[in-house]
């Protein structure tokens, strides 16, 4: 009765969850801090830059939230996005494919890797960490082999196929508009509905909560677990497209570590490391924290390595909150 009364008096906490309210607070504090500390940060262009560098992390993070909720993880997405975008670039520049074709190849390859991850983990019961660590290495080598070690570039604005540079930002009257954020908000909304309101989402959450109970109740656990990794693969493919359309040079063999920004974002946003809970909106907020740190810390004159240390400390804080929540639940 006491608990119920408390909840009624905290509508915000009830709607978003305590962790997400904390994260929103952190975002506001970070934004104010950087704005006060650096005059250059307070410019409109900083917001555009923040959005621009956030898309590929957010897309990876939305995808990886699904395996995380099942109690698994997908480490292959970091090197994966470099592999998919570089193969897409190779198909466009070397094989004469239209940009749309390159995008489809990137998405297809991402789905294949996602499917392989899902089958190995769900059907063969191999640990997700080990499986996706292997596919992470495979993706890292695959891009280099397919392109002969060459770095890749997707068509630049103004050149044939350069329309792809306008997917995430357009220039109106000399001012850059980060329209990619519209696509991101739509995707967050759609994937939130899928996670909360559809059978796919409910089963994925149930796998993370109690996989054995779900199996005993006659649900095809393998199928839904594979779907979780397919979603992760699909979003890694979308992330690859956004990466290729944002940056100039895609270097084969790189990408290791990018997945940590995405996984970190999901965890900061309240996705449990042991599975069973999480939300796409939370992931969005978590990625905003990571991106704010990545964009804002250079503005206050911190040497590059300090930026990594501070990001790591924020992650420790998020994991500690997750652990505390679990202990409380137990």
């Amino acid at each position, binding site marked *: 009765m006491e608990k119920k009364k408390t909840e009624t008096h905290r509508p915000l906490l009830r709607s978003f969850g305590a962790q997400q309210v904390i994260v929103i607070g952190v975002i506001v504090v970070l934004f104010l801090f950087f704005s006060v500390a650096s005059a250059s940060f307070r410019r409109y262009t900083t917001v555009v830059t923040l959005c621009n*560098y956030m898309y590929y992390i957010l897309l990876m993070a939305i995808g990886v939230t699904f395996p995380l909720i099942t109690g698994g993880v997908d480490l292959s997405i970091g090197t994966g996005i470099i592999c998919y975008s570089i193969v897409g670039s190779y198909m466009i520049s070397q094989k004469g494919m239209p940009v749309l074709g390159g995008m489809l190849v990137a998405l297809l390859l991402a789905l294949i890797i996602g499917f392989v991850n899902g089958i190995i983990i769900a059907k063969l019961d191999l640990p997700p960490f080990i499986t996706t660590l292997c596919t992470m290495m495979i993706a890292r080598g695959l891009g280099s082999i397919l392109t002969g070690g060459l770095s890749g570039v997707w068509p*630049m604005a103004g050149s044939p196929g350069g329309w792809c540079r306008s997917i995430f930002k357009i220039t109106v009257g000399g001012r850059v508009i980060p329209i990619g954020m519209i696509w991101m908000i739509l995707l967050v909304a759609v994937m939130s509905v899928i996670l909360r309101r559809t059978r796919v989402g409910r089963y994925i959450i149930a796998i993370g909560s109690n996989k054995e109970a779900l199996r005993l109740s006659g649900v095809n656990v393998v199928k839904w677990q594979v779907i979780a990794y397919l979603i992760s693969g699909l979003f890694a493919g979308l992330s690859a497209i956004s990466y290729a359309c944002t940056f100039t040079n895609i*270097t084969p063999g790189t990408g290791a570590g990018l997945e940590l920004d995405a996984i970190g974002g999901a965890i900061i946003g309240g996705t449990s490391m042991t599975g069973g809970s999480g939300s796409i909106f939370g992931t969005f907020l978590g990625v905003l924290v990571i991106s704010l740190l990545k964009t804002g810390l250079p503005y206050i004159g911190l040497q590059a390595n300090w930026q990594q240390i501070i990001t790591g400390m924020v992650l420790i804080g998020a994991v500690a909150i997750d652990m505390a929540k679990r202990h409380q639940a137990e």
Partner: protein
Amino acid sequence: MKKAIAILLSMVMALSATACGGNGTAASAGGTSAAPAGSGEESYHFEIVSKGFQSTYWQAVYKGSQEELKKLNSEAGYEKYTMNFVGPDSESDVAVQVQEFTSALNAKPSAIGLAALDTDALLDSIKSAQSAKIPIIGFDSGVPNAPEGAVLANASTDNYAAGKVAADGMYDKIKGRLQKGKKVRIGEVNQDATSESITNRGLGFIDEMIDKLTADGYKVFVTGNQKYVGDSKGSTGTEANADVILEVRVPSQTTTELCATEAGVILNESDTIAIFGSNQVAAEGIITANGTLQVCGTGDDQIIAVGFDSGSVIKGAVKGNTMYGAVTQAPVMIGSVLIDLLASAAAGEEVKDKDTGCAFYTSANIDNQEIAQNLYD
């Protein structure tokens, strides 16, 4: 069924893992095995360990070495020289390069070409090469701080001088915008603070800019990365009274997105009038950041961007006047001179360092023959 799938997937993964194991050698050049020489004919095999294949710059070095090898073989009338050109995927892969250098030694080559990522990590292998009397020729950034006598010669750009060339090219364009008492900012983005070639280039730019500005009576304050600030000629003014702030930024990793973030911070400062990116990755980082900020150009109210090396993105930016200019090395020449030095060293001849040169290019001279031949996509 489950077992069969397990075996099948294990095989696929093992196969792929084997392919991944060839990380550094994935892009190894063709014609890699030692050539069977005819009776009594001398033959030489060279192992070349580069910093990687990640940029088109390295592809151009490889092309130069391949062409020179072909030329020498054609002059000899038989396949007198062969080579194996390898390199890690990323310039952060020091351990992969150490493995590649060890494999190169095991191939017992007539001579080895080396562009070291980290000399300390290669020290034992370099000593083994010395013991086995295998001559080492450095190229690109060479083998900085190698034990005395270990590297016989280098085929490389004088990077400090190349940095000065970038500063000279930029200064000519911006000097009209400088005013005593009106603070402006010139930025520099370097992909790292460890590689000899990058640091020399960065320092060459800073020192030359300090000299030029001081000669014209301006006070300079150098700030940012400690390594560059500490090793440069130093500030001639304070942050408060300087006419020009020289700000040096280095990302935590050598990736385009992190270089773009650092470049974006400089471009976003309201007093920035110019920026220099000291290699292809850093220069492309500036172009990426400018894609969002749209502040670079050649107009009087725009930021003058100067890059280094080429590649389709930088060439396009220079041609389109988004980037005012860039310094090109002669990567094809580096590859070609490397083979000549390796051939001479293998034959026991005396060899010495060769500067392969560099030049500043803008949209005005990008198509000139002497520039165009060194530009690559």
